[in-house]
Every structure is written in C-alpha cells, then in structure tokens.
C-alpha cells in the first residue's frame, strides 16, 4: 500500500537548513494500524504530511497504492488525496464557519458527490459517531471529544483507504481520548489502514505496529501480536 524508500526532507529558512527526515524507508500494508512515536521535533509530523501527500519529500521515492507519487504536482497529489486519504488532527481543524454537517460533508463536495447522496452519507456517519443530534451545531458549541468525532466523521465520510491521525487525542481528556481511540480501532478493523502519530504509549497500544523515530530516522519497530490488540 505505502512504500517509502530513502526519504529525506529538508527545510530551508533564510540561511539555516534543517533536516527533518533522513534516509527513511517504510512499508505499510493495507489494513495495518501503525503508530509513529518519538520526541518533539523527531520528524513525526513531517513524515505524516508526506504520507498524506500534503508535502513532497526532498529526496527518495514514495509509492502510494502502486502509484509513484514522488514527482506528482500539488494538483495531482490533491486528486489522489481527496479520494484515498482521510485526516484527523490534534487540533481538530474544523472550519468554524461551517456547521457540523457541513464540515463533514466538505470532502464529498470536493468529490462532486450529488447533494442528496451527500446528505444521506453525512447522516449515517454522524449517527455512527454518535453525534447525529449535533448536526446543525457549530464547532465552538461542541466539547473537544465531540469536535474530534466530527473530525473523524469528516475523515472517513468518503471511505478512504488510509486514515492519517496526528495526535488525535492530544487535546482530549482520557475519557474522550479513549472513545476516539476505540472509534479509530473500529475503523481499522473494518479494513481502513490507519497511521497515527502519537506521544502517548497508551494510544500506541491500540495499534498493531509502532515505529519510533529519532532525528528523522527510524530507530525501532515493534510488531504486536494480534492478541495484544484490543
């Protein structure tokens, strides 16, 4: 599903060059649930952005679903992204001016799904996330946990092959955090590939594989026995 070979990413600001990723190779199969962990500044988010086709690597090659995306332009990446990848962020990143239903509907709007179909799918996914009664509310009217559910609903509304989560529980208390993790796990069990960046060992324990980064390199990888997963 995902093949990264010798990926490097360097940022240049004025006269300082920072290396975020260095010679990183990674293979992720369809249906996996992978956690990426590491200290602040180890390159986790950069990696996630590259995986999510939000950013392009400076070096190396990236194959997504058997397509070499390394040299794709932004428009090509956007096209792949909108039908294959869903995102969940620590800070939810909901659009404040849109209602819950409208936020969730947005990916379908960009996929040009007809209105009646959109409505149906939004209703279903909101029900599933347990926030159907909040459809007309605006993000600021919801608790953090509810906002993150909206964000998850938005991420999965177009049934993406891959779900990328960046510290999905970082802004939530443990109760709401657990709820979110259970939802993500459930999605994974239904076949969605999940890649999650996290600081939390607890959250990582939901995944089947944990990759640890340090200074832009993979330093360890541990596979969990299927029984360990919840």
């Amino acid at each position, binding site marked *: 599903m995902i093949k990264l070979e010798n990926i490097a990413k360097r940022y240049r600001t004025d006269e300082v060059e920072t290396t975020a990723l260095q010679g990183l190779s990674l293979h992720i199969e369809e249906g996996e649930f992978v956690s990426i962990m590491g200290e602040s500044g180890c390159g986790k988010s950069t990696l996630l952005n590259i995986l999510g086709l939000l950013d392009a690597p400076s070096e190396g090659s990236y194959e997504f679903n058997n397509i070499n995306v390394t040299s794709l332009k932004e428009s090509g990446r*956007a096209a792949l992204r909108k039908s294959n990848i869903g995102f969940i962020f620590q800070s939810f990143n909901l659009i404040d001016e*849109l209602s819950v239903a409208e936020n969730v509907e947005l990916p379908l709007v960009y996929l040009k799904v007809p209105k009646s179909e959109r409505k149906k799918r939004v209703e279903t996914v909101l029900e599933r996330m347990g926030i159907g009664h909040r459809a007309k509310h605006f993000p600021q009217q919801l608790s953090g946990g509810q906002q993150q559910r909206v964000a998850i609903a938005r991420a999965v509304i177009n049934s993406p092959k891959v779900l990328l989560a960046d510290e999905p529980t970082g802004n939530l208390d443990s109760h709401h955090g657990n709820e979110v993790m259970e939802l993500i796990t459930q999605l994974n069990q239904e076949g969605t590939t999940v890649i999650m960046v996290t600081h939390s060992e607890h959250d990582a324990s939901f995944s089947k594989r944990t990759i640890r980064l340090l200074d832009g390199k993979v330093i360890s990888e541990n596979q969990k026995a299927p029984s360990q997963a919840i």
Partner: protein
Amino acid sequence: MLESLFKVGIRNLLKNRIYSAISIVGLALSISCCILIAMWVFHETSFDHHHEKANRIARLTSVLNMNGEIDAAVTDLPSGPQIKQDYPEVEEFVRFRSAGRQAELSTDDKLFYQENVWFADSSLFDVFTYHSVQGELATALNEPKSIVLTESLKEKFFGDADAIGEQIKINNSYLTVTAVIEDIPENSEIQSSAFISMHTLPQGFFDVHNQDWFRIGFYVFLLFKEKPNVKEFDKKLIEFEKQYVQPWAEMNQLEAGLVFNITPLKELHFDNKRDYDLPKGDLNYVYLFSLLALFILIIASINYINLSLAQSSKRAKEVGIRKTLGSSRSELIVQFMSESVLLTIIAAIVGLAFVELLLNWFGNLTEIEFSSLDLFQPNILLTLLLIVLLVAGLAGSYPAFVLSNFAPVTAMKGVIPKTGGIGLLRKVLILIQFTVSLFMITGTFLVQDQVDYMRSMNLGFDQENILSIRIPADTSVNRQVGPWVESLKDDSRVKSITNASLPTGGGVGELMFRIEQNGQLSEKPINFIYVDDQFLDVMGIELLEGRNFSKEIQTDQQQAFIINERAVKQFGWQDGALDKRMQWGLMANNQAANDGKVVGIVNDFHFLSMQNELEPVVLLYSPNARNVVNIKFNQGDYTGLIKEMETRWVEMAPRHPFNYSFYDDILDRNYRNEERVSSVFSYFAVLSICVAALGLFALVSFSIETRIKEIGMRKVLGASSLEILWVLAKEFFVMLGIGFLIAAPINYVFMQYWLEGFAYDVPITPFSFLLALCISLALAASTMIYHVWKIATTNPVYALRYE
C-alpha cells in the same frame, strides 16, 4: 456549491461583524458617491442626445474681427438661409433670437416674467425633436404671431383647459397659441418655456438685419443631410465668408471680417469659451468629479483589501483544511472571489439606499432634478455593475490568488510565508489612502480660500444696502412707477436712487464704439452700462476726473461718456482722457448716431464677477431708462419700508410681481459655481477622510487583536497604554507624514492649474496644507481613543495565556 459558498460568505461576514460593517459602510458610501457623480456625469454628457437628428445638427457661430475679436456663440440673420441655399449638404436651418432676459407674457388675468422665450423659425420642429401635447407642430410656427408653449407654462396660464387658439400678450402685441409641447428636458442646451414664430418680429427688424452681416444676435443651427465633417465644412465657410461678407464689408468701408465655424450639437454643452453663449457645462469639472469619485472608491476598496489582508492568517487555516480535504485551487479562488462579490453586492445595495436618501440633497447641490427612476437607467446600472466587479475583483484577488496558493501544511498553521510582500502592499495601500485624503482636504481649503478671496475683494463699488427692483416694460405700469420711484426719494430711510440698465456685477452689454486713437478713430467693442446721474452716488463709485452726467446738460445723452481707469489705460489715454472723442451707433463714413467726448473718469469697479478680469467700461447717460431701479437705504432697519413698497406696488401694478433682490445676493450668485465646487469638494473630502479613518480604526483594532500577546508582555514589563499604542500605531503616523509630502506638491500644481481660470487668484500659502495635515493627524489620533482604552483594560495575564 453556490449555496454553500453563499452560506460560508455570509457566516464569515457575520463572524467578523465590525470589520465587515466597516468594509460595507465604507464601500456603500463610496459607491453612493460614485453613483451620484455618475448620474451627474451622464446628465452632463447627454446634452441634446435626445434629438432624433442630433448627429446631423451643428451650431453655426462666428468670430467677429473688428479691432479686437469677439468669439460669439451667435451669428447674423442672413447666413443661415444663404448657407442652406449654397450647400446641398445642408438640409435645413433654424434661428433663435431671445425675447429678452425675462420676457413679460400675459393674458387678461395673469402675467409672468418668463425666462427662455425665443423667437424661432418655423423649421424648428423639422430640426429639433419636441413632443407635441396639443396642436400640429409642423405648422405651429408658420404664421406670424404664433406661440408654442411648454406644458408647464401652459398650465400656469390656462390650467387644465385647452390652450389652442388662446391669446397671449408680449410687448403689447397678441400671440395665438398654436401648440403645446412637453417640457424641455433639463439636458438641453436650448432651454425654453415658449417659442414665438420668428416672423412675429416687425418687417423693419428683418430689413435691418438681413442687410448686415455684422449684426450678430442669433443662435443658428444647421441640419445636415449626413453627419457633417466639421473641419471640411469650416473650410467651406471660409469661402462663404469671402463670397458674401467681404464684398459687403468693403462696400460699407468696414475693416472687419467674420470667421464662421460649426460645432456639432452633441459637443455644444462643453463648448463654453464663447461670448453671448447659453449657460454651459465645464468638461474639466466632469473630469474632476469623476476623478474624485474614483478616489473615494479607491479609498474604500483599500479598506476592504487591508481588512482582508489583516484577516488572511485566519483565512489561511481554512485554506489549509480545505486543501487537505481535497479542494482544488480553482475552487478556493471561486470561493474567495464569491465572498468578495457578495460583500460588494451588499455594499452596492446599501449604497443605492444612500443614493435614494441623498438624491434631493444632491439635486439641490447640482441644481438638476434627479428622480429615483434615474437609478434604473441602463448606464447607471452598468456603472454599478462595473463598480461591483472592479471592487470585488480588486479586493478579492489577494485572498483568492495568494492564499489559495499556500501549501496546505503551512496554511493550516495559519502561518503566512514571510515574503515581506504583504506588509509592503498594506503599507503602500494605506499610503495611497492617506495621500488621496490629504489631497482632498487640502483641495477643499484651497478652493474655499479662493471663494472667500473673491468675495472679500474690493469690488470698487458699494454693494451693501442696495435693493434692486425690476420694472415692467408695460408702458402703463412704467408710467405710474416713475413718479412713485421719485416719491421714494423723500423717505428718510432712503439714501438715494438710481436707474441702470443692468445690475452691476451681473453682467453688461457690449457695443461697437469708435474711439480716438493717434488722431484717428478706430472701432472697438466695449462694455457699456446705461446709467442716470445718481448712479455714481448710489454705487459709491468715485469720480476721479471730470464731471458726472447732468440733467441740466441736454446734450449729455448723445455726447457725453464716462469711462473707467482701465479704459484710460487700455485705450492709451494716459496723457489725458478727458475730451477724447467716442462714437457709437456707427454709420458709414465715420458718422455715428452718438458722437461725443469723455467727460469723466471713475475708479475701476467690477461690473462683471470676480472670475473675470477687470475690463474697460463706458457709462452712457440715459436718465429715463427704467428697467431696473436701485435703491440705496440708509443704515438701519428697512424691512418695514420694503413691505410698504410692496403694498404700494400691488396697488399700482396688481398683475405684476414685485421682483426685488439685494445687491449682495445678486453678487453672491456669481460665485455659485465656485461655491458648488467648494461644497462638492468638501463633502467628498469629509467622506474620504471618514472612510479612511474607519479603515485606520479597523487596522489598529486588528493589530491589537493579533498582537495581544506582545501587548501583554509589554504591560508586564511596565509599558503604559499610550506607549503600547504608539508601538502599534506609529507606522500610520509616519505614513500620514509621507502621504502629506506626496500630496502637497500635487495639490500645489493642481490648484495652480485651477486658479489659472480666475482673473484674481488667491496666493497659495502653506497654511491650508498644514491645516489639512493637522486635521488628519487629529482625526487619526481620535480614532485610536478606543484602542487606548482597550489596551488599558487588557489583562496582561490573560494576554500571555492567549494561544
């Protein structure tokens, strides 16, 4: 998709209520301004377009060269028919002659002094388009003593009754109403309340005029078969002059010539440099006001752009999210553009409401009657559409094209790449705003300076406490009024009384004189006023040399002239002007009806308004002329006397209105045009500075909002509110200073140009410039009072926790 764009647009506007309101109000005000000005500009540029044959009509004018040039809007009587006869491309001609400044029209029971009454050829309705309400226009002016009334004049006389066949009296002769036409549109050069058939004038009049190519006194229009080529036809007119006018002039031993030329009807309104012309427009003002409207639009658009820029970091996050979720760049461009279109449309609607409210006021200011319906004319709607597209395009393009280009990851963090471009753009835009505002404020002061200057200048005569009464031409009334005016002289409240042909300061006539120069007589057109022996006394004009006219000297009417100092200088009579020979009522062989000598010299006085340079003038003695009586009151309350006069007047001349005005009011009217420019300028200036101030307010608010952490830090470290505000706002004051440095020289050059149009221009002093700067600084500072309070009440702890 559209619906969702609309929804998001509205929600964004509502979320940033204050900024949206500032943008919308600013834009709405400026749009209303633009629409009002557009209405005025369209009015000014649409003169006479409504005539069906407008493209084929041109006015014939003549430059009379007779020891000095008179570029006259009028020409002689014979040229029209002769040109039609000689040039097949000319289909028809029509001539107009004024029936007097205020023609006295009456029926048995009603009398009105009517402006714009014309004698016209019967071809009038073949050339120009008028719409008949009653009667057959084609034949309406065929017979002598026919009159065609406009609808409103007909109503004044006859109400709703049928007017055809009714009699109207003018100058003691009766005219028959043959037709009624719709009122003449305001955007017509030839304003008229009635047309009288040309052949109503006595045969003797035609005999004299038909034989004299230099008796210019007719507005002549030619109808061509096709749109005329002006240059080519003017060339033909040179030949025409050689063929007819030159031989005639030689035969009459006149060393003079005419240059004929034509002006297309549609260009007539701005052809404003000729003597004896109808009221005209000024193309410069059309340009000037259009420019002002554009300035205001720019100022308001800049507010909007700046506020969009200020909010761009907030919007960047949204861009990031949308891009992450799969939005394409073009979708984002459409989104931002449609938001900007939405806001502009709202502003346009509010602006139209403002226009509706301001329409009356604007009509008074411009002296044009506008109606709400004018708003829905295609050209106004088109202008509105253009404004909306322009403003929406300008204001929406930054977020649309720049924000949408951000990489999703950075955009989502709300971090805008620091290219320095945005900051610079904002500064440049603010600078433009300040420069334009300063330009307009300074302009207002300078224009007002000029108006005040003209008003305060010594006119060379005394204009206070003088009442001017118009005396009817009606001989029966005139006979009664004479003794009455005499009797007023005995009233203790009256100082003195004079008759004069025209109120001084309100214009004079020009006559052809012969004057003695180097032992010879040479011809010259000179201004003249008919006066009596009291004129100098009443007007406070000083006799410098010689004597006044006298009732005792019988020959004074034909043989005595009083001239002003300017005439002495211009005629080269510095060695002694008294007893120099002058003639008027010229005949061949140096003969003249009036042949005499200069008997007195008076100080220069401004018989024209101050826009014109002082010119030579000749006073002619006419003790019995009673067109206008000027009564000089003694200091004190004379309102009672005016009431008494009115009562007496009504007894004497019950049908004639008691028409009077004070001299200073008459003079004030001369400055109406400048007053108007001055008021329009000042309204615009106030508006532009208000809109700019609103923008400034919003920008500083925004800067406080986004730098709240910095403010908290500074507070913790002991800065006062004012010190903090200064950090945030100093760049604005610096820019105001730079704006001043840019605006001042432009103002200077511009005002020099404007003042060139005046014979007497006020010196431009730095005072107006500095005053404008001080006012702008004070205004800028006052918009920030709120901010000082806001900073003062900000809790630093909260500020530091922010984010």
